[in-house]
């Protein structure tokens, strides 16, 4: 088996995604979101293919991909750890939880742990303020999180 055949076919996926939106460059953001859903991030070859297929400069894709916080250009960890740092969560102890996460996982916002298990992404507000402070791992919400709980939540995903 060659190395090429082991890699995902970025071009084919890009073509499929671009066709999904009838090659309309107005849908660049949803296209990139779809690519990210497919690969977990936006691989450069896929982005190059999109730019080519839409006949737009690669720099436009790049500027969009770097502008929006939900789009990632580097591979993410197995689990996405989202911490709400909206006003209420911040007031009710979110900042202490953020410190604890950074300490425990040795990551900064947006980074992925060395073992590729978690990508840490603080967000502005998850809109569940009544349950503050709120944290999410993938699609699971953790409400009224305390600093002490953080370790045990991680432990669940480490098993």
């Amino acid at each position, binding site marked *: 088996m060659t190395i090429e055949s082991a890699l995902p076919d970025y071009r084919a996926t890009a073509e499929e995604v671009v066709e999904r939106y009838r090659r309309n*460059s*107005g*849908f*660049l*953001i*949803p296209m990139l*979101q779809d690519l990210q859903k497919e690969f977990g991030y936006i691989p450069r070859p896929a982005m190059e293919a999109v730019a080519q297929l839409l006949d737009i400069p690669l720099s*436009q894709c790049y*500027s*969009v991909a770097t*502008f*929006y*916080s*939900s*789009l990632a250009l580097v591979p993410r960890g197995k689990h996405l750890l989202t911490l709400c*740092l*909206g*006003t*209420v*969560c*911040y*007031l009710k102890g979110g900042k202490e939880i953020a410190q604890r996460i950074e300490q425990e996982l040795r990551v900064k916002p947006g980074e992925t742990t060395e073992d590729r298990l978690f990508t840490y992404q603080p*967000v*502005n*507000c*998850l*809109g*569940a*303020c*009544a*349950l*503050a402070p*709120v944290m999410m791992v993938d*699609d699971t*919400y953790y*409400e009224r999180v305390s600093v002490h709980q953080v370790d045990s939540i991680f432990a669940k995903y480490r098993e």
Partner: protein
Amino acid sequence: MTVSSRSTESREPVPLSAGRSEAGLDGRAAEAARANPRGTATAERRAGGGGAAATLSELQEPARARWDALKRGDQPIIWVGMATCGLAAGAAEALKAAEAELEAHGIAAHTIPVGCVGMCSLEPMLDVEKPGGARICYGEVTPEKAREIVRSYLVEGDPRADLALGTVGDVEVAGIPRLSELPMIAPQKRVVTGTFGLINPTDIDHYLAHGGYQALQRALEMDPEAVLAEVERSGLRGRGGGGFPTGRKWRSCREAHGEPKYVICNGDEGDPGAFMDRSIMEGDPHAVIEGMVIGAYAIGAHQGYIYVRNEYPLAVERLRKALADARECGLLGENILGTGFSFDMQINRGGGAFVCGESTALMASLEGMVGEPRAKYIHTVEVGLHGKPTTLNNVETWANVPVIIERGADWFASIGTEGSKGTKVFSLVGKVRNTGLVEVPMGMTLREIVFEIGGGIPGDKRFKAVQTGGPSGGCIPEEHLDTPVDFDQLWEVGSMMGSGGLIVMDEDTCMVNLARYFTGFLRDESCGKCVPCREGLAQMQRILTRICDGEGREGDVELLLHLCDVLDDAALCALGNTASNPVRSTIRWFRADYDEHIRERHCPARECRGLFRYEILAETCNGCGACRRACPEDAISGERRQAHTLDQTKCVHCGACLEACRFDSVVKV
């Protein structure tokens, strides 16, 4: 297949149990409801109509029959709050437990996911309705509690007044208050959120059975000009923050040259502490859609967009389902209700950028570009999306439109104040007892909202301020708590209505640190296009950080105010123009806090680390040693059972001793 689909599955109005037999008990009603690809009875009726568009009454009749059959059937109904708040609090687990208990007793029941009732701090909430009996609402339902409630009420006939919050509907139960009469609910006026918690947002028949799309029918029978005049006359103003008169916006767009015209729903609710729009999109998506179709008809648009924040996946799914159902029923798409009017819309997910809540940035984002605002010398109602006339309104604004058409502009204008008509939905959060979603008539004072509906401040703490308007708003101190909820009066006290986040703060909140938080937020979210915002916010953040770290200088406050002026005058968009509000309003009302930080190196709220001390109270310390063991710096000493002492020279102000002490003997001074 799950229990929830029982109710949505039945083809015939009666009996409702038809589709129930193979129902498994794997729970997660929301998932099932979201995934339920099958159309409703209504849709099937329409499909069977041989292609001709159904009239509204042809849609409504079977919907009403289904609803009546559900309500008058011989099976109990379990209603579960399945909005994000409810799910986060464990509604799915509670439902699963309830279903297991039902099965254990061989009881067949309908399970219906509903939107947010608004009592978010009591989630998960679950209502049990007995056939022909009372519907009782229970709060903070754990799985064990769910089993207990089902067993007690449905098997043993005990409504469990000890666990109940209140009754819903006409049938009352002795010893249980009516939910609508609870202190948190009674002062509210529910117009936009009226059906929240009562109908299944994923079932168009529920919406139709409650008069849904009646306003659309009425609007389509009117001249577009008359629809516009009605909205103008209602006095409705934009609920997204600016408070611009909606009717005037629509008229400018209608009269603008250029085709096609677009309508957009701004669901990019980025203000931290605000979740009204999420709740509306999740709890009553059809109201938003109906409002948009009416608006499009009045303006002359045939294409619409709903731009939803990336962080709201459930809202997207509910809207997607609602759009598909509306299309299937002929309420969206070609030849709506057979009137010849055509309009369709699509959902766009945001990429996670706060600035995209600004209209021109949002439109840039819809065009596949970076979300940078542009100067609005020419308004978007003339040159908006793709250079065409575009009307952009907030979710709540659109949801108000059907009500105005249905009940009339006069009725709508009878609610509220001289300059602000109707109601406003707020998310009441922070240091307040009853957190949640509230809807009040304009003109109610902030004091009533915080202390009557909100129940005041928890603990023995004192109220300090309420923050309105998100990062673009300001903090309002106690002496202005009697300010009514009104666009113009909130401006006068240095804040703004904003989209509707009300964040209550108590004496433990440092206003300087809060200003720093918002400035930091806005600095991170600044798109970077114009210099005052990009550089000004970074400088303000530096100065505020310096003050919070105890390194503030004389003149810092004046410097901050100067930077505020620059931002107000020179920033490009509304985000930048209002970015100074948190700093300006905290200086205006809490100047003493700033001065104490700068001159005395002391934080009056005892929040800024290093600007207050920890002390051990000798009178109450019993020498248990918990704080001594917790201290990472060995700053605490003392014999067993003797009062301990803290060496201030070693203390690093980590707060571990305060957390460790179970006798309240460690205090901040």
